[in-house]
């Protein structure tokens, strides 16, 4: 055929060099975590006088607003009634939970990206779908980690799991009102069956669709039958409907319920937006790094341009969702809602994160990726993707840590170290599985369209 471009088969090899680099990074992560833990153990409560006073004022501010919520007295100081674990341990738990949610997001967004491409019958991405597919291999690990660590972090991260909040002196009207969300069909304050079951079912569903879609994608390599593409599209369409519901509920369950008195109807979208743009940045970064090692000849500047537009556009989308949530709460000024932002904006621990979050996730990607050339050149994508990836870590940090640590939160070696450990584990799983299959689908019905993609 005149218009058919011939390309040779490609297979990624996960070299010992790459493994060594990752292992060293992992060791650095462990060392940083240990160092951070020791520092956190020794710092104790409120070391400086001035800081102690400031913290006291902030505590009082947050407490006075929480008291206005009409909740019980205990709602005023979460640490008061239930001391829970020592701050350093809480901080480890908090980081554990942040990374669980963050990397689960990367895995499920890998599958979501593939499903979107099938459902939209997209041709441009035909050559790059193996990378998001490889990322989705983290799903089973994410699921097990999530469920196991939920039982570990339990009371320290999720205030609502204290059973005495539902009966007697400490009874909390707000939480009693929400209890069915967690405890149904059992008695409130007992085992949160509905909650745990949801977690298990979500991961099971996601994993099932991942396996189905992956099966069709790999079978296509062998016999080149077009029916695999149609089957994968059907699975993808069903998965997208399921993902719309499950990702939203997962956001309430895993992140919003860390602040159990607070709620936002935007939250499902907000977390999805954060996951999605972050996933896109990771996919792009992996593609760029692979290309620089000489892989992926099927991907050229036109494909990078498209995925760069995705990052640019969804950075704005994230900002739109973030701002919609912020503006409504700011404007309505209802105490039970504003407490969330007062905790994050009026406290010395989190105020800088609040603005860093906006700079990294909106201003920098917006300005740096605006021109056409920036999206087509790997050098700029290599700068912007890490910015977005770090930015969304701050985003999840800001969603979870203030709710868990109150005013004891900090950002230091421990946060960086634990993120590194998770990142190395995630990359090990992703790259191992990337090496197991050809780097692009040679029998994909739209591969030729992708090769001639031109914008």
């Amino acid at each position: 055929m005149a218009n058919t471009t011939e390309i040779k088969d490609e297979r990624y090899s996960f070299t010992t060099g790459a493994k060594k680099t990752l292992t060293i990074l992992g060791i650095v992560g462990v060392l940083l975590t240990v160092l951070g833990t020791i520092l956190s153990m020794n710092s104790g409560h409120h070391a400086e006088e001035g800081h102690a006073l400031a913290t006291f004022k902030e505590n009082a501010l947050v407490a006075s607003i929480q008291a206005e919520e009409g909740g019980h007295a205990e709602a005023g100081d979460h640490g008061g009634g239930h001391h829970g674990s020592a701050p350093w341990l809480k901080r480890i738990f908090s980081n554990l939970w942040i990374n669980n949610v963050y990397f689960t997001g990367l895995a499920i967004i890998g599958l979501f990206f593939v499903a979107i491409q099938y459902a939209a019958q997209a041709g441009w991405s035909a050559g790059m779908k193996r990378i998001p597919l490889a990322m989705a291999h983290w799903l089973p690990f994410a699921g097990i980690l999530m469920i196991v660590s939920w039982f570990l972090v339990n009371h320290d991260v999720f205030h609502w799991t204290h059973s005495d909040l539902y009966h007697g002196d400490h009874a909390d009207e707000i939480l009693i009102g929400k209890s069915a969300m967690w405890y149904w069909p059992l008695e409130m304050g007992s085992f949160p069956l509905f909650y745990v079951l949801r977690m298990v079912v979500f991961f099971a569903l996601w994993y099932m669709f991942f396996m189905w879609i992956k099966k069709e994608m790999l079978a296509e390599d062998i016999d080149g039958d077009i029916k695999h593409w149609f089957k994968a599209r059907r699975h993808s369409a069903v998965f997208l409907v399921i993902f719309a519901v499950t990702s939203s509920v997962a956001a309430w369950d895993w992140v919003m319920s860390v602040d159990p008195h607070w709620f936002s109807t935007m939250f499902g979208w907000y977390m999805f937006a954060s996951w999605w743009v972050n996933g896109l940045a990771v996919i792009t970064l992996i593609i760029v790094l692979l290309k620089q090692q000489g892989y992926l000849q099927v991907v050229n500047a036109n494909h990078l341009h498209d995925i760069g537009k995705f990052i640019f556009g969804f950075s704005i989308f994230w900002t739109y969702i973030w701002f919609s949530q912020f503006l409504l709460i700011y404007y309505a000024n209802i105490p039970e809602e504003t407490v969330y932002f007062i905790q994050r904006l009026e406290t010395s621990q989190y105020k800088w994160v609040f603005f860093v979050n906006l700079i990294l996730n909106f201003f920098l990607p917006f300005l740096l990726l605006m021109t056409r050339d920036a999206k087509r050149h790997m050098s700029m994508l290599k700068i912007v993707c890490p910015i977005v990836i770090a930015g969304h870590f701050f985003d999840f940090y800001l969603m979870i840590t203030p709710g868990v640590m109150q005013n004891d939160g900090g950002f230091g070696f421990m946060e960086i170290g634990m993120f590194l450990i998770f990142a190395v584990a995630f990359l090990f799983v992703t790259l191992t599985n990337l090496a197991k299959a050809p780097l692009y689908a040679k029998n994909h019905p739209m591969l030729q369209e992708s090769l001639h993609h031109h914008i």
Partner: protein
Amino acid sequence: MEKNKHFVLGVYEDEDVLLSAVKTVRESGIKIQEVYSPFPVHGLDEVLGYRRTRLPIAAFMFGLLGTSLALTMQIWMLGFDWPMIIGGKNFVSLPPFVPVTFELTVLLAALGMVGTFMIVSDLKPYKKARLMDTRITDDKHVMAIDLASNTLAKDDIKKIVNESGASEVNDKDFED
């Protein structure tokens, strides 16, 4: 009025022939004024050697103008000219200004871009269209060569165009 604009038109049937023809015609030193085609032909911009448009820069500037205009307007109106307490907020508080700022940024960027485009492309009301060939809206690609901007003789140009694979070579004159 005298017809003082003279064009040579090469008519092509196929876009692949057109692409190679544009290349050969340009290589022989002829300036092509414009190529008309019934559908977008990929790669045509490159072989014609067009520079990328600087319209996005204009759009960015108009956007910046919109942003600053919107902020200035709101800060002046609500902060100084007629301060009002709304929802217990400060007179000058940024978050409520963001939606209007966003909308005006988009509006000015869009209108400015359209306006710039029309001025640059000399599109104006009552502008008389120069229709090179009616078949460009149907099934033919037409390459238009302005004789005034070329030094080669008309017959030489027609010969080169004909040899490049054109199905017909026509003359077209307009009064300016």
